[in-house]
């Protein structure tokens, strides 16, 4: 509570200001206040130490080789790929909120889209690290790009892993463009409010001389709409391509045609869970309760419930077709998930992903900040286990019983996973401190007085 009182004064706007000024004020003060709330320092400290752990893990990995991980025959894709898919999944909600909800005219998205987009980018950064580490030869990843080279070799474009390079690369680039473009007007606001030369210079450089000209707004809005329309299929494609990594193979439990939409639904599900996990503390500590309201959280809870049901549908279809197909390896793979030596991970996944969101059927639960936060965290855990179940259980029990194995993660596996959270939260906390956390211009466009007296046709 002491933490809250630090920022409470900022919630109230200067006397006599209109609604627009209050929005500017509330959002800008988060970055303009000389000292952020104490909770920010605590969180940043934890995040930095985890980031240090990440750095140490990677340094040791490069020094020694990927033998420090538990990956071994037959589970060659252990934690690193689980983490990769997990983080890429998290990185879906941001662009979904920005793009798809924009196209569907869901105006409530304006309160949360900015930091959901930021979350997307940081999650994709975390994701991109893992395949880079997992190739085991950190000086060779340039082989993945079509660069003319002395060996006269080209990348193999028929491989799903190469598609990943392009899909994740494009997604990261377009997400950054989308995020940056959305921020230009808000950076201009920061520039115009800044009192120090340095702030003015830096925000000014990134605002590129935006002055809110209506002729520019016209093209800006068109560009935003186009980017949204481009980002929508892109979101679908990224996790579909990630799912191809598995589904094009013949390993039982991997090769199933529903993987692309199932992965996308799962990614949105996990991404929204991460958004609420971040939104709840962010609105609490930075005094944004009037902008990110309970209603926003409730709507996100509904989306979590809906996408959770879609994921449940895919789980069910996989099981049904595994039985219906009559293929004995498929059959075995799914019986093994239920009752095999990895069944603990399967039941964790079901409990977290299918059962826990069911509380959102009740309005009381959907509007309780703590319930939303806790379910968000649980779903994140569940989505990590989903990838674990898909990758590890399927690989550990392949066609040849003589090659069966059991993945035993090493402390370095855990350290790298925990460390990636450090990278994510460090970036996220820096973003909260220095960039406009809420899309001010967009929020302003939807307050009632934005239309006062305006002709509405």
């Amino acid at each position, binding site marked *: 509570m002491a933490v809250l009182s630090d920022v409470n004064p900022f919630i109230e706007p200067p006397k006599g200001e209109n609604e627009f000024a209050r929005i500017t004020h509330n959002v800008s003060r988060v970055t303009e206040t000389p000292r952020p709330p104490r909770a920010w320092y605590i969180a940043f400290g934890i995040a930095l130490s985890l980031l240090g752990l990440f750095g140490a893990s990677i340094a040791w990995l490069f020094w020694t080789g990927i033998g420090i991980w538990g990956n071994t025959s037959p589970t060659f894709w252990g934690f690193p790929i689980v983490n990769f898919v997990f983080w890429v999944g998290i990185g879906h909600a941001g662009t979904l909120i920005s793009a798809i909800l924009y196209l569907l005219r869901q105006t409530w998205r304006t309160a949360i889209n900015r930091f959901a987009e930021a979350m997307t980018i940081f999650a994709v950064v975390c994701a991109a690290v893992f395949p880079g580490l997992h190739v085991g030869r950190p000086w060779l990843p340039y082989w993945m790009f079509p660069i003319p080279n002395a060996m006269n070799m080209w990348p193999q474009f028929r491989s799903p892993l190469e598609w990943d390079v392009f899909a994740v690369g494009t997604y990261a680039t377009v997400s950054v463009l989308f995020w940056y473009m959305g921020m230009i007007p808000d950076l201009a606001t920061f520039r115009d409010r800044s009192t120090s030369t340095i702030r003015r210079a830096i925000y000014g450089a990134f605002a590129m001389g935006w002055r809110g000209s209506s002729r520019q707004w016209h093209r800006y809005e068109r560009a935003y709409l186009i980017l949204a329309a481009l980002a929508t299929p892109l979101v679908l494609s990224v996790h579909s391509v990630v799912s191809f990594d598995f589904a*094009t193979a*013949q390993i039982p439990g991997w*090769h*199933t045609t529903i993987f692309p939409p199932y992965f996308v639904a799962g990614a949105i599900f996990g991404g929204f869970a991460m958004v609420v996990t971040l939104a709840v503390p962010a609105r609490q500590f930075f005094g944004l309760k009037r902008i990110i309201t309970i209603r926003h959280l409730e709507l996100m809870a509904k989306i979590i419930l809906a996408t959770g049901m879609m994921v449940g549908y895919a789980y069910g279809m996989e099981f049904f077709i595994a039985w219906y*197909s*009559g293929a004995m390896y498929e059959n075995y793979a799914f019986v093994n998930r239920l009752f095999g030596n990895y069944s603990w991970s399967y039941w964790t996944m079901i409990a977290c992903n299918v059962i826990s969101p069911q509380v959102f059927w009740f309005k009381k639960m959907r509007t309780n900040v703590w319930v939303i936060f806790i379910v968000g965290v649980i779903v994140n855990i569940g989505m990590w286990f989903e990838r674990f179940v898909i990758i590890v259980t399927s690989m550990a029990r392949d066609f040849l019983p003589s090659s069966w194995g059991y993945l035993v993660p090493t402390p370095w596996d855990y350290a790298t996973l925990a460390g990636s959270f450090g990278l994510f939260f460090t970036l996220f906390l820096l973003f909260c401190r220095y960039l406009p956390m809420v899309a001010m211009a967009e929020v302003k466009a939807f307050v009632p007085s934005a239309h006062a007296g305006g002709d509405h046709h």
Partner: protein
Amino acid sequence: MADEKKPTKGDGDKEGKEPSKKPAPEQDDFGDNIRLGAAADNVVKITGGIGAVSLLACLGLGFTGDTKRFLLSYLTAYAWILSIAIGALWWVTLQHLVNAKWSIVLRRVGELMAQTMPLMAILALPIIIPTAMGNDALYSWVQHDPTDHMMHHKAPYLNVTSFLVRCVIYFGFWAVLSRYFFKTSLAQDQSKEPQALNGKMQAVSAPGMIFLALTLTFAAIDFLMTLEPAWFSTIFGVYYFAGAVVSFHSMFALILMWLQKQGALKKSVTTEHYHDLGKMMFAFTVFWAYIGFSQFMLIWYANIPEETFWYKLRFAGDWKVLSAVLLVGNFVLPFFGLLSRHIKRNRKTLGFWAVWILVVHYLDMYWLVKPVLHEDKLPTGDILLDVTAVVGMLGLFFAAAAMAAKKVRLVPVKDPRLPKSLAFENF
């Protein structure tokens, strides 16, 4: 003839009478013609008559000719018309689920299209009855060979009894759900607390959507996927769903254009609504391609014989041409055709693409069903069966919807969200 009358009894009569007691005043209040009136009778008589005759001709040809060929033609047309009806039910459920505002003015028309569900149950009888009687002309699993290990494994699912039980569940659920939304929506027209009814319908729509997803999936599996009982694909239900949504929106746009030509809804349904329908057609054209590509590419890439034979049939002989036509006609052309907002906002161009999509969607169903014949050539000899089946079902579909529309308002006038729907604008 019986085919045509039965559904309408269940549909329009009871509902129609309640509002008919005091129709005139509200109608004037609304400031737009929201009754179909005499045009509905014409549709029932003429379109329904043509449909019934055509369908009887199809059945007649079926009894005299090759049963398997008849059943395949019939199933193709049926899968097509059913997808439109299910699309309508899905759309109505979705609008309630997400509390959509833009579509309120269109909602009743969607509800009316979903009122064809009892008709769908009746139209399914020529497929269900032979199957129930142990005829394996259509579904080879009906007479399963006990030595065939694979079929023996699948027998708990692929047997006549459980097939019949599932059919009862599908059609029963669809009829009940569509009727519930229609009835509640009509009650809203008279209600003093229309908001409460919206809440009620939204509450029903959530579990409704879940069961709709499951019934749609398994219906697609039962009617289409089990044509090749050895083949399987987890995405199959989603594939059928994608086609259902895109063809429903096309049919929806065409019906709205027809209604406006009849003088109904002239002011209420604006270019903005067509633009949104066009966007949905565009989006689900892309979605269909995405799902179709996912299914094909994964099976092509993994190259496992128990899956690839299904595509091999469709890439052999003339079927290859049809596959290419589907790719171009169902994705490439409508994609570029519907890309521009000007096309979506122009009724003529939108109407053209709506007709186009309905035709290629029929070809999609044809492509799903007919290769079961295991022939290299397209079965063009069955064209009379194909045409009579489509015309018959389409005619009865319109007649059933018009029957339900006879005495009701075409707009849910009391819905509190209606003004927003009337005034909304695209960006």
